């Protein structure tokens, strides 16, 4: 069980971009308190580019680290590129997650998608669809 990479521990102990955001342009919340994790992601978007991202997370070390890493990965990206940040990309950037914790990175991907679509909805843009899940190896 003592299983996290140094990178995970770093992002857990010193999470980047944690906190509420005033007047976000998009918000996405995923997860379920019954299952022990909720992730809420806030985006500040200008010219189709993610200027700022913040998160609030209830969950385990992997959930917090995934939130932190995901916000880092999407900052400065276009919405299209941010949408393409996969759970695997988050996990890889964290130098891996234990297999029973991979769902935390999935939550992060879903939270990004939800926040982007929240923004698109507010802008009266069409919602983007989920791509096929990558099959686990």
């Amino acid at each position, binding site marked *: 069980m003592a299983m996290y990479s140094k990178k995970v521990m770093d992002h857990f102990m010193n999470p980047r971009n944690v*906190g509420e955001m005033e007047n976000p342009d998009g918000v996405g919340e995923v997860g379920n*308190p019954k299952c*022990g994790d909720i*992730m809420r992601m806030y985006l500040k978007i200008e010219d189709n580019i993610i200027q700022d991202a913040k998160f609030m997370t209830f*969950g*385990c070390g992997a959930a917090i680290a995934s939130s932190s890493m995901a916000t880092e990965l999407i900052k400065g990206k276009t919405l299209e590129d941010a949408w393409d940040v996969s759970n695997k990309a988050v996990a890889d950037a964290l130098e891996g997650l234990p297999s029973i914790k991979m769902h935390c990175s999935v939550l992060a991907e879903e939270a990004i998608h939800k926040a982007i679509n929240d923004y698109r909805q507010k802008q009266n843009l069409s919602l983007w669809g989920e791509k096929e899940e990558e099959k686990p190896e």
Partner: protein
Amino acid sequence: MQNNEEGQKLVYMDHAATTYTDPEVVNAMVPYFTEYFGNPSSPYTIAKESEDAIEKAREKVANAINAKTDSVFFTSGGTESDNWAIKGVAFANKNKGNHIITTAIEHHAVLHPCEWLEKQGFDVTYLPVDKYGHVNVDDVRDAITDQTILITVMFANNEIGTIEPIKEIGKIARENGVYFHTDAVQAIGQVPVDVEDMNIDLLSLSGHKFYGPKGTGALYIKKGVKIDNFMHGGAQEKQRRAGTENVPGIVGLGEAIERVTSDIENHAKRMQALRDRLINGLLEIPKTHLCGHPTERLPNNVNIVFEYIEGESILLMLDSYSIAASTGSACTSASLEPSHVLVGCGLPHEIAHGSLRLSLGKENTEEDVDYVLSVVPNIIERLRSMSPMATK
């Protein structure tokens, strides 16, 4: 005990998970690895040392629980003892009945054998518990049918520390001619255990919970109890438990149980003072609740839930302060379900995820407790400041 990289002494408060093996226990074991290594079943001289050592250890275990020496059988741990007791009684008595009574908050080493027996045609009643984790004695009585062959109720719960009304349940079992097994893995070394006085027919214990070696345990089987073997094979343990005896392990188990039960009242008093200091300090943190019974609990068990946050992240932060503890959160279980014990006590899932168990041991001091109390509030605040539930 170790210091971590920063030189902070490890404050280990997870004794309910496992203890270190007492160095003096290790010293007692070592000669049986290399010097008195004979197979106790052999007739030659060096084997006699092994055989004598096993019988001495058996006496020590028997003394610790007030049992007859020849009613103690060595096993590979608490899990084997539970499996043996439950499956052994079930198979040996299936002509008499197929019904077993247990509780919803047993250790998995009891629950999973019961579930497996259900697949083999047995019926199991899982009694509910109240919010403190207590099983109701009347519920036990009412659950008995003419098919009931076994009642198995744990002595004390491993997560919340609640001590069950063992003696009363044992009395009911005896009045109804039903065998009574108790998983006393967490109780040994914490509270006095007396199989005679408490009407216990079978009792499980595990060495590594009281400064003995891992992979050692014992099952007490009252004389006359009808029970199948579980480990079938050679003629060891009077043909009741096969397998070459783990001589060093058995020696360690005997040494450890003697030490831990020799001054149990004083030890318990000391633990209880530390426990209550911890509980009171932690309950000053807002939105925080004690799990388990406030007084009828193991003297070394603290279990607190913190609303809005999740247990594993508490543990990781504690680890960074060199504090070792445990949680009932799903995130540390392979099942991704929060502790069946906390849920069994009626805690909603989202709150059960925020549990923290601190289980004390003999090397813990008041300074350790105060150190923990100086660290936990900050951790809770930090995690709550990240939690969308705290601010909703």
